[in-house]
């Protein structure tokens, strides 16, 4: 929307990016052919689908809650 993010929203975004990079191969920075925001949304969807969450592509409370849970360090994307 162009509105600046609050510090909490920034923290959540950073947490999600780190999570998706680790477990869903979110490309770093300018890697990949897609726009970074498209890649991010696409990976959020992938993660939501894997965990049986509502697939919205956005960082809702349930998605963030799952991202914060203790887990195995192996990627969820076997490839």
């Amino acid at each position, binding site marked *: 929307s162009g509105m600046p993010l609050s510090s909490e929203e920034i923290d959540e975004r950073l947490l999600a990016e780190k999570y998706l990079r680790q477990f869903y191969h979110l490309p770093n920075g300018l890697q990949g052919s897609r726009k970074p925001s498209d890649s991010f949304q696409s990976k959020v969807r992938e993660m939501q689908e894997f*965990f049986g969450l*509502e697939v919205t592509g956005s960082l809702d409370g349930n998605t963030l809650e*799952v991202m914060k849970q*203790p*887990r*195995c*360090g*192996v990627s*969820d994307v*076997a490839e």
Partner: protein
Amino acid sequence: YNVFPRNLKWENKEVTYRIVNYTPDLPKSAVDKVLQKALNVWSGVTPLTFRRMTEGTADIMIQFGNGEHGDFNPFDGPNGLLAHAYPPGRGLGGDTHFDEDEKWTIDSEEYNLFRVAVHEFGHALGLAHSNDPGALMFPIYSYSEGYPLSEDDVEGIQFLYGKNPDSRKVHPKPVAPNKCDPMLTFDAVTELRGETMVFKGRFYWRVHPNMAEPELALIKSTWPMLPNKVDAAFENPHSDRVFIFSGIRMWALSGYDLVEGYPKYIHKLGLPKTIRKVDAAVYIPDTGKTLLFTEEEYWSYDDNSGKMESGYPRSIESDFPGIGEEVDAVGYHYGYLNFFHKSLQFEYSYNSRKVIRVLRPNSLLN
């Protein structure tokens, strides 16, 4: 279940392992025993055998480390990442690492080494993560007692290696229920602070009015103190309590927490000792009464007086015509009782005393 690309697996049936170092959280003998037991879970359902090495390079090198521990795949301090393992292969392949910044236990306290080890050895043998929340290969940590594998885990590992030729008896946990099954039945239904909780086996769905998709999770992942199966549940919104029944015991929850003094026996409500379980329960806000259904009868508990009402038990079939003799679960919404029995849901008008609609139970799951 999922496997790694090219179905990576060990070609030899004898897989070697070596415990390189130990966690100070547990005695060495306990760690040896836990890790061997974890490997035996997988050998119990496959033709694989495991041989321990005390020096040199084994297929599965097991170590405890924190932060950056030599594989450029660092851990992250307490909680978060707990452990990781590499799929079968040379060198790092099969190696299993546990985060030493976690507190490792052999009981229900976080984090149970046996549970995590069985999961990680699943990776070391060729299983990737499962998206079945009841499977041990689901990525998120959960604790439960008893045999750790679900049918999904067993199917996955046997896809790679086949069955154990000795055909030892194991009892894997059932796979997660399918919300799209038209014959789906429920164990219990309740509201909890605006959301609907639907219990089925070891699992429950969480249905939020603003979300199209219900969320499925293990009961114990949210409420570790509850048993693996729930018979009945109801919410009293005035006291902000949810009551869970299983067998002859009942638990009172305040959100995620157990209310002090619970569990209690269901007979404390005034049910006779001959009643060994409650099939369904519901609180009616308009009357302040809780209805408890057992076999073909039901009871009415008066919250105000804290006693069972006189004149009960009464016949379900007589007082709720059209829903049959017994119920599996019941909920209350805006003057309607939703009775669930086998693969039918009856929407019953409490005021006009009749069935308004007959639906499938899983319409509650959208």
